[in-house]
């Protein structure tokens, strides 16, 4: 149980850090979606299925969708 918590939480942190670290916005969004996915798993482990479903439904499809649409309407890279 503890091992699962540790693994999942560290994965969440790695995903969030990657989402911030990447220069390519699309890669950033992918990492964010991954982090949100694993966050949902963590909610699941914390016995919060309601929150997990909400995070799953919103994080898996809708957030990624609106981010990618917004990136498509603007530009894909961070400029320097």
């Amino acid at each position, binding site marked *: 149980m503890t091992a*699962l918590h540790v*693994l999942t939480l*560290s994965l969440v942190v790695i995903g969030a850090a990657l989402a911030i670290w990447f220069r390519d916005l699309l890669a950033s969004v992918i990492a964010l*979606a*991954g982090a949100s996915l694993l966050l949902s*798993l963590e909610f699941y482990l914390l016995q919060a299925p309601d929150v997990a*479903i909400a995070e799953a439904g919103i994080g*898996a499809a809708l957030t990624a969708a609106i981010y990618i649409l917004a990136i498509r309407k603007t530009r894909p890279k961070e400029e320097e």
Partner: protein
Amino acid sequence: MIAEMGFLVAAAVLVGYAFASMLRLAAGPTTADRAVALDTINTLVVATMVLLGAAFGQVVLVDVAIVYALLSFIATLYIARYLEGGLR
């Protein structure tokens, strides 16, 4: 029951594999590589959730896995469509 313990261990192993996929997500030279890694993590997490639902002995938790199995595909489609140059 011992079977639940087995489910738990299997779930932990699958999350460990998600760690490996996260490496590809971090390293992947192209965006498509990262998307593949995300897809893999999705599948692994769905399997993990089903296993954990059995391990915790609570049936209602499995619904979360169904949501993921249905919806993780949409994010992948968006990325693929973006790579194609669509969505204008």
